[in-house]
């Protein structure tokens, strides 16, 4: 249990996917204008990542890995399909997002109305694919990959919501004309990343 807790803390704070690994920048910049939008997108990302990371885990470990059960069953133990990984994960993510959209539309219309417009955006959010790739690279097991997916999503959501809050304040501050817009956002993100680095000594 403690192991999972420390993994979660690590991926939310210490190795925040946005601030330490730079993933999911595009939507981070584009959708952090309003706090409400940021919360909506953040929730959707947590949701999607919690599902896609273990789904990619299944794909990798059952079909693609060398000596994976399905390949053994097909009697081709020499085959290593892991080079098809990129294709598989991106397909899993795109399909999951599409499926989730239909599922929410049918059974949870209120949630769908809130998340609806953000869901298609997530398919091209590099944080989601990044989480799948890191999961494979670090050899997580199933439980770890669920925890990793969920907490990485939370870390991303936290970063975008705090950025949206900062931007709300920034509107009333006096910024040099050339720095307005994109420039100041990056500098603020840099400062945010610096504060998150304070967590880096923590070991659980």
């Amino acid at each position, binding site marked *: 249990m403690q192991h999972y807790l420390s993994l979660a803390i690590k991926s939310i704070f210490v190795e925040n996917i946005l*601030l330490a690994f*730079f993933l999911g920048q595009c939507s981070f910049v*584009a959708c952090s204008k309003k706090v409400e939008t940021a919360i909506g997108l953040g929730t959707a990302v947590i949701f999607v990542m919690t599902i896609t990371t273990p789904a990619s885990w299944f794909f990798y470990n059952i079909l693609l890995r060398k000596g994976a059960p399905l390949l053994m069953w097909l009697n081709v133990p020499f085959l290593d399909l892991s*080079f098809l990984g990129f294709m598989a994960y991106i397909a899993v993510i*795109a399909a999951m997002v599409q499926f989730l959209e239909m599922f929410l539309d049918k059974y949870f219309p209120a949630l769908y109305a809130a998340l609806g417009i953000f869901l298609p955006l997530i398919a091209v959010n*590099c944080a989601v*694919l*990044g989480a799948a790739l890191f999961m494979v690279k670090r050899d997580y097991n199933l439980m770890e990959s669920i925890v990793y997916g969920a907490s990485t999503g939370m870390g991303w959501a936290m970063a975008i919501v705090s950025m949206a809050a900062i931007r709300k304040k920034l509107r009333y501050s006096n910024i040099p004309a050339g720095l307005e817009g994109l*420039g100041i956002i990056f500098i603020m993100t*840099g400062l945010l990343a610096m504060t998150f680095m304070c967590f880096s000594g923590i070991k659980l």
Partner: protein
Amino acid sequence: MSQREGLFSKRRWEAFREFVWEQNPISFQILGICSALATTTQVKTAMIMVLGLAFVTSLSNTIISLLRKYIPSAIRIIIFLVVIATLVIIVDEVLKAFMFDLSKKLSVYVGLIITNCIVMGRAEAFAMSNGPWDSFLDGLSNSAGYGLFLLAVAIPRELFGKGTILGFTIIPESAYQMGYKDAGIMLLAPSAFIILGLLIWGKTEIEMRAAKKGGR
């Protein structure tokens, strides 16, 4: 088109310049920032990343432009993803075969070219409605603009973080003896954000001055 246009006509050259400077994918279109920041601790990795992106963007643009009349618009995103993912797999395998150390350093970021918004964005915005040669050039010019920013971030990071550029020592030994120290923070995440922010500031400032002078 009534008149045949030269392969490198003036209009195409103009478009190239525009994407490198005015409509730079990173500072203007806000595309492809993730990898721009992650791979810039060294000039070498940044250069490999630019080459990889140039290969993928220009070819995916060409292929999608050739197929544009046959792609149903309802499933176009998935088709884009398949084309792009195939090209990225090629880049990744080539890197693994010939530059194993570098491919280790770039780790997942090569794979992330798939979701690099430049590739997807250009496929959607340009290749779907233009001919193959134009699309190829469009891919190249966007990658050039991307490369410009990547190098501009990577050079100060490597220089002040390690005292080298491309692995060659730039800051002399005597400077270290006089008490100069490499700034470790340049190799960490926050500096990348801040340098990029300052670069964008500089670029907007130059543009604003030019606009004032030209009275545009």
